[in-house]
């Protein structure tokens, strides 16, 4: 605090080197922003954040202007408000104006700004945008007509994910966001992570809807409709129902899913335990037999597609394990179908994921047996919340229930999959047991916890020194892969998640998910781990039973057939 500034006639302090926006925020003041993205360099493109600075002829953008000692700033003068209002009016002038029919009705930043700035008449009417919907992707639908060209999707795709599937195309009033040679997202480098949806202020980006089909299946008496939910779902729903971020709602979630008509409710954390059994065994196998190292996790479908596109020389490093969603899918349509005597064709298998890439993963050719998909439909957290409302379920009045046995019982190792570092920690716990025959003295692996984009640790397992790295955000993965390619040998096992912080910040999560919410969800997962009795996947009694009765042993013949997969080099631009 070494600068003194005057804001709206109040004397405040600010840090040298900060922007005006930082300084205002630190002092508890705010100005509206649209193109601004925390942690990334400012572009000053939308001009929503303009303020008046004494001695300056023009209004300045608070997000990109460094704060100076003695600056006299007006954040809400008549001129400033009028200017912001005009910007929003201009944005609305060519907007489709179909709020009532829009996915983002109620969670739209443009709508909020129009409301906050009290826009009550159509002062400027321009030619409406006309663009084709891009429905080519299995995961994401783009509607350029609703786009206000803030550029947040372009930046998150390039700077956080290192994918650059989309960019500004054309010039002036004809500018829009599109893919390489207008081919559509399915032919682009898009990895379906959905981070673009999370940063989009309007309804220009949304997930591909699976609710309609699921609704039909729920009312089809021929079908047994089963649902699984990812580890992060139960801690990511609270905000939707006005509760504190991170609150674990697993009990009411089970109850709500049953009220909607799902016949069986399973927990993907169970198959996360199964993933660990296979993956930790694979790691042990690779380490002890001189297999390809470092081994890299393959639970994240965004990362898997990214690797197939950009890091295909590392494909052999990827674990051959399917993701927990797909393992559960395969087990439901084999083991579960067998024990319940239901034909796999009559099982409709739904998963609830914090993720849009899971919709793509579910449709991959390798993820089916004899022409029957292992998973039939994927709901994002947002879609689940929408369905809960659609079915008129009052969360507050529900009594907690347990998930169905046996695929609904988990260890806490499977649960922490939801946060960056969780897969790693769970795998280490089991690998330790597999190698040494003994449990770890302390299960916590502190070095891999936290929301940083990159974490590294050295772990002693018996006589082995195992180097591990955890990255989230694919840009961080790219940097690490480059280091490996350039000869780094001290890392043996890597966890990669496409979304910064892992699934708790996934592209399918509730709109408005911020740093605090992500942190609360992470702490909630670790709190569950702390309190749970069974902290390792290999001690989950139902996992033990599944191997005894059905699978045989990890990496065995049946496992290989049902739980493992392969990858392919992809040529896209």
């Amino acid at each position, binding site marked *: 605090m070494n600068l003194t500034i005057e804001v709206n006639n109040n004397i405040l302090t600010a840090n040298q080197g900060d922007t005006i926006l930082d300084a205002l925020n630190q002092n508890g003041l705010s100005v509206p922003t649209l193109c601004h993205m925390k942690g990334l360099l400012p572009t000053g493109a939308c001009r929503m954040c303009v303020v008046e600075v004494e001695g300056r002829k023009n209004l300045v953008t608070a997000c990109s202007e460094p704060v100076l000692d003695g600056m006299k700033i007006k954040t809400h003068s008549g001129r400033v408000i009028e200017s912001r209002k005009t910007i929003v009016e201009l944005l609305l002038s060519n907007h489709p104006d179909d709020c009532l029919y829009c996915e983002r009705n109620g969670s739209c930043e443009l709508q909020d700004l129009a409301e906050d700035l009290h826009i009550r008449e159509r002062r400027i009417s321009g030619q409406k945008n006309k663009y084709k919907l891009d429905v080519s992707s299995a995961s994401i639908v783009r509607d350029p007509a609703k786009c206000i060209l803030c550029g947040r999707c372009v930046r998150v795709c390039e700077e956080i994910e290192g994918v650059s599937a989309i960019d500004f195309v054309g010039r002036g009033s004809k500018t829009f966001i599109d893919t390489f040679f207008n081919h559509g997202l399915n032919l682009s480098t898009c990895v379906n992570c959905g981070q673009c949806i999370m940063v989009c202020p309007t309804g220009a980006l949304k997930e591909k809807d699976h609710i309609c089909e699921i609704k039909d299946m729920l009312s089809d008496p021929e079908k047994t409709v089963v649902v699984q939910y990812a580890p992060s779902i139960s801690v990511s729903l609270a905000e939707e129902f006005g509760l504190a971020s991170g609150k674990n709602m697993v009990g009411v979630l089970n109850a709500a899913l049953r009220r909607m008509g799902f016949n069986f409710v399973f927990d993907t954390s169970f198959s996360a335990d199964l993933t660990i059994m296979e993956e930790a065994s694979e790691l042990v196998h690779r380490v002890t037999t001189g297999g390809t190292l470092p081994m890299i996790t393959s639970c994240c479908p965004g990362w898997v597609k990214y690797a197939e596109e950009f890091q295909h020389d590392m494909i052999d490093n990827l674990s051959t394990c399917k993701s927990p969603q797909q393992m559960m899918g395969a087990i439901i349509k084999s083991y579960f179908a067998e024990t319940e005597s239901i034909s796999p064709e009559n099982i409709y298998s739904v998963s609830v994921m914090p993720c849009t890439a899971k919709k793509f993963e579910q449709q991959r050719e390798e993820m089916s047996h004899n022409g029957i998909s292992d998973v039939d439909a994927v709901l994002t957290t947002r879609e689940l919340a929408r369905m809960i409302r659609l079915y008129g379920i009052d969360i507050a009045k529900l009594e907690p229930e347990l998930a169905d046995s046996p695929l609904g019982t988990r260890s806490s190792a499977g649960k922490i999959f939801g946060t960056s570092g969780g897969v790693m920690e769970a795998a280490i716990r089991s690998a330790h047991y597999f190698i040494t025959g003994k449990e770890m003295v302390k299960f916590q692996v502190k070095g891999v916890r936290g929301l940083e984009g990159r974490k590294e640790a050295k772990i002693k397992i018996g006589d082995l020194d195992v180097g591990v790295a955890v990255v989230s955000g694919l840009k961080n993965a790219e940097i690490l892969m480059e280091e490996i390619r350039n000869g780094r040998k001290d890392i043996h096992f890597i966890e990669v998640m496409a979304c910064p912080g892992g699934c708790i910040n996934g592209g399918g999560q509730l709109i408005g998910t911020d740093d605090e919410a992500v942190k609360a969800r992470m702490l909630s997962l670790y709190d569950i781990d702390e309190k749970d009795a069974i902290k390792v996947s290999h001690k989950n009694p139902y996992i033990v039973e599944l191997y005894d009765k059905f699978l045989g042993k990890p990496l065995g013949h049946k496992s290989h057939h049902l739980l493992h997969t392969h990858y392919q080099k992809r040529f896209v*631009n």
Partner: protein
Amino acid sequence: MKTTVQEILDQYQDSGRDSLIPILQNVQEKLGFLSEESVIEVSKFLKMPASKIFGVATFYNQFRFNQPGKYHVQVCRGTACHVLGSATVLEEVEKHLKVKAGQTTKDKLFSLEVVACIGACGLAPVISINGEFHAKVSTDTIKGIFDDYKNREE
């Protein structure tokens, strides 16, 4: 055998992203347009996402993304031509050729481009086909002009 694009890129061995525009200009000069394959080659060479290069290239009017036809049609949309109805002329040409500006007809005979001013304001509205100027074009004369070129092919 090196591709045309590789030969061009050879001249830019030590260059970075700042050479993007000159490279694209060279490629267009040699190929007549920017093909998908050529942009991908440039993208690999400069280690720049292909979508980004496409974005940059579409910003500039000078870059084309379709193979030019045997006859390259330029419709002038400069001020004088505009005043004398070039918007209608363009519309009619698009209708007649069944392509939009920037595209090439299926038979690869005609490609259509909109230009700002070709400096023949006295002849407005004017179109140029492979450098041959056609003066005072109207919706009535367009069919005849193109039929003339089609007849040359038979």
